[in-house]
C-alpha cells in the first residue's frame, strides 16, 4: 500500500524529485539518502514493524559503514555478503527453518511471534550482495559513502526493485537528466499506466483468484479451476509490472533511469525467453551472482543442468519462506532443463521457425508457466489437491 497511497506522492515523491533536480551535484546524493531514510522510517513505522521496523534503518547505515572496507580481493567483501544473507535468513526464514525442527510453534524455543520484515529486505539484499561481490572483483568503483547511501536508499526502487547495479546507477546520479519536461511527462504517464494496471486489472482479478483455496476448489465446477489459475497468472503479471512501472516512472521524475523489469513475457515462445523477459533485473542478478559462479553453461551437460536447477532453487527460496516456493522454483528449473535437452536432441533449423511451430511453442510455454503458478499462490497440499480435482475430478 505504498505506491497506491497519497502519502507516497505528496510527502515523498514530488518534493524529493524536485529537490533532487534543483540540488547541486554534490548535494544530490544527500537529498536521495535523506529522503530515502525518511521514506523507510515513515512507511516502516506506519505500515510494518512499528518502532522496530523503523529502527531497521540501522541496517542501511551499518552496511554503508562496512562497505567502506570493501576493496578488491578483500575478505571484508565476503564478510559483507555473509552478514547480508544472515540478515535475510534471520528476518525472513527464521520461523520457516526452525519450524522444520520444531513443527509446533508453541514448542519452538526460537519461534519469533511478532515477526516482521524490514521494508524491502528481499530486494536490498540483492543490491548489498552485488556491491560486495563487484567490489571484490573490482568491477565497480567505490564511490563516496553518500553516493552508496543514495544507491541503497533510492526509494523508488528500494521496496521491490527493479534491482539496480551500482556501476549503472552512479553515472546517472552524478549527471542526472536535465530534460525536465520530457522526464516528467513520461514519468507521470508511466506511473498512471502502472496505477491503471494495478487497480483496473490486478485488483479486479482478485475476485477470481481469491477462490484458490481448498474449500472453493472442492466445490468448483472443474473447468472453472483453470480459469482461476490463469486469472492468477494475469494478475501477478499486472500487479508486479504495475509496481515496476510506478518505480521506473518515479525514478524518471528524479531524472534517473533504472532498469526495465518486464518485456511482454507472456508473448514469449519458450521458457528461456520467458525468463529473459520476466522480472529481468532478478534474472540478470541470478545469472551473474549464482549461475555463472557455479560454472554457467561452460560445463558438461549434467553440470549445466545442475547449475540451472540450483539457480532456480535459490530463486524459489527467495520468493518466499515455504515449501511451495521451492517447488515452484524447481518446476521452472526443470522446464528450462527439459528445453535445453530438447534443443540438444533437435537443434533449431536455420531460418525462422514456421508460424504453427511458434504458436505451439508459445502455447506450451504459456500453459506451463500458468500451471506452475499453482505452487506460487497455494501451499503444496492445496496445489496438489487443485491438480487432483482438475485432472481426476
Amino acid at each position, binding site marked *: 500500500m*505504498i505506491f497506491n497511497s497519497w502519502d507516497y506522492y505528496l510527502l515523498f515523491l514530488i518534493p524529493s524529485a524536485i529537490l533532487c533536480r534543483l540540488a547541486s551535484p554534490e548535494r544530490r546524493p544527500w537529498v536521495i539518502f535523506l529522503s530515502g531514510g525518511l521514506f523507510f522510517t515513515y512507511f516502516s513505522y506506519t505500515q510494518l514493524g512499528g518502532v522496530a521496523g523503523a529502527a531497521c534503518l540501522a541496517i542501511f547505515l551499518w552496511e554503508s559503514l562496512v562497505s567502506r572496507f570493501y576493496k578488491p580481493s578483500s575478505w571484508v567483501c565476503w564478510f559483507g555478503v555473509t552478514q547480508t544473507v544472515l540478515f535475510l535468513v534471520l528476518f525472513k526464514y527464521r520461523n520457516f527453518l526452525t519450524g522444520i525442527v520444531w513443527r509446533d510453534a508453541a514448542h519452538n524455543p526460537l519461534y519469533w511471534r511478532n515477526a516482521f520484515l524490514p521494508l524491502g*529486505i528481499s530486494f536490498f539484499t540483492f543490491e548489498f550482495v552485488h556491491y560486495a561481490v563487484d567490489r571484490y572483483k573490482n568491477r565497480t568503483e567505490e564511490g563516496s559513502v553518500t553516493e552508496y547511501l543514495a544507491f541503497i536508499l533510492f526509494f523508488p526502487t528500494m521496496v521491490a526493485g527493479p534491482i539496480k547495479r551500482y556501476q549503472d546507477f552512479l553515472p546517472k546520479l552524478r549527471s542526472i537528466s536535465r530534460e525536465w519536461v520530457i522526464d516528467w511527462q*513520461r514519468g507521470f504517464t*508511466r506511473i498512471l*499506466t502502472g496505477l491503471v494496471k494495478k*487497480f483496473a486489472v490486478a485488483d479486479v482479478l482478485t475476485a477470481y483468484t481469491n477462490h484458490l483455496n481448498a474449500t472453493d476448489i472442492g466445490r468448483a465446477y472443474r473447468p472453472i479451476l483453470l480459469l482461476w489459475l490463469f486469472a492468477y497468472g494475469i494478475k501477478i503479471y499486472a*500487479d508486479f509490472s504495475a509496481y515496476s512501472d510506478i518505480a*521506473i516512472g518515479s525514478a524518471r521524475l528524479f531524472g534517473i533511469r533504472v532498469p526495465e523489469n518486464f518485456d511482454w513475457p507472456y508473448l514469449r515462445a519458450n521458457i528461456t525467453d520467458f525468463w529473459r523477459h520476466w522480472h529481468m533485473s532478478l534474472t540478470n542478478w541470478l545469472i551473474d551472482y549464482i549461475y555463472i559462479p557455479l560454472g554457467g553453461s561452460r560445463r558438461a551437460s549434467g553440470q549445466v543442468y545442475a547449475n540451472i536447477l540450483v539457480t532456480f532453487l535459490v530463486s524459489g527460496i527467495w520468493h518466499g519462506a515455504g515449501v511451495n516456493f521451492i517447488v515452484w522454483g524447481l518446476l521452472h528449473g526443470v522446464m528450462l532443463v527439459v528445453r535445453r535437452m530438447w534443443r540438444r536432441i533437435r537443434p533449431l533449423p536455420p531460418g525462422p521457425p514456421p508460424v504453427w511451430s511458434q504458436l505451439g511453442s508459445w502455447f506450451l510455454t504459456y500453459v506451463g508457466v500458468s500451471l506452475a503458478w499453482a505452487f506460487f499462490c497455494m501451499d503444496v497440499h492445496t496445489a496438489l489437491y487443485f491438480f487432483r480435482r482438475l485432472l481426476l475430478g
Partner: protein
Amino acid sequence: MNILEWLKHAFEYVGGAQDEPPAGFLIGLGHWWFWAVWWAAMALAIYVFSGQSSKFIYIDF
C-alpha cells in the same frame, strides 16, 4: 517493422515506456490535448476501480 512490433512500440509509447512514437504514429509528445485526454481517462479508471485494492504481491509485508 512488422505489425506486432509496431503495436508493441505504440502501446509502450502511450504507456510512458518509450520516448519516441513508432514510425507513422500521429501523436507526438507535443500534442498536449491527446495527453490531457489520455491522463484524464487513466485518472478516471483509477478513480472508478480504486477502493478494492490489495497490497502489491511482491512487497515484503
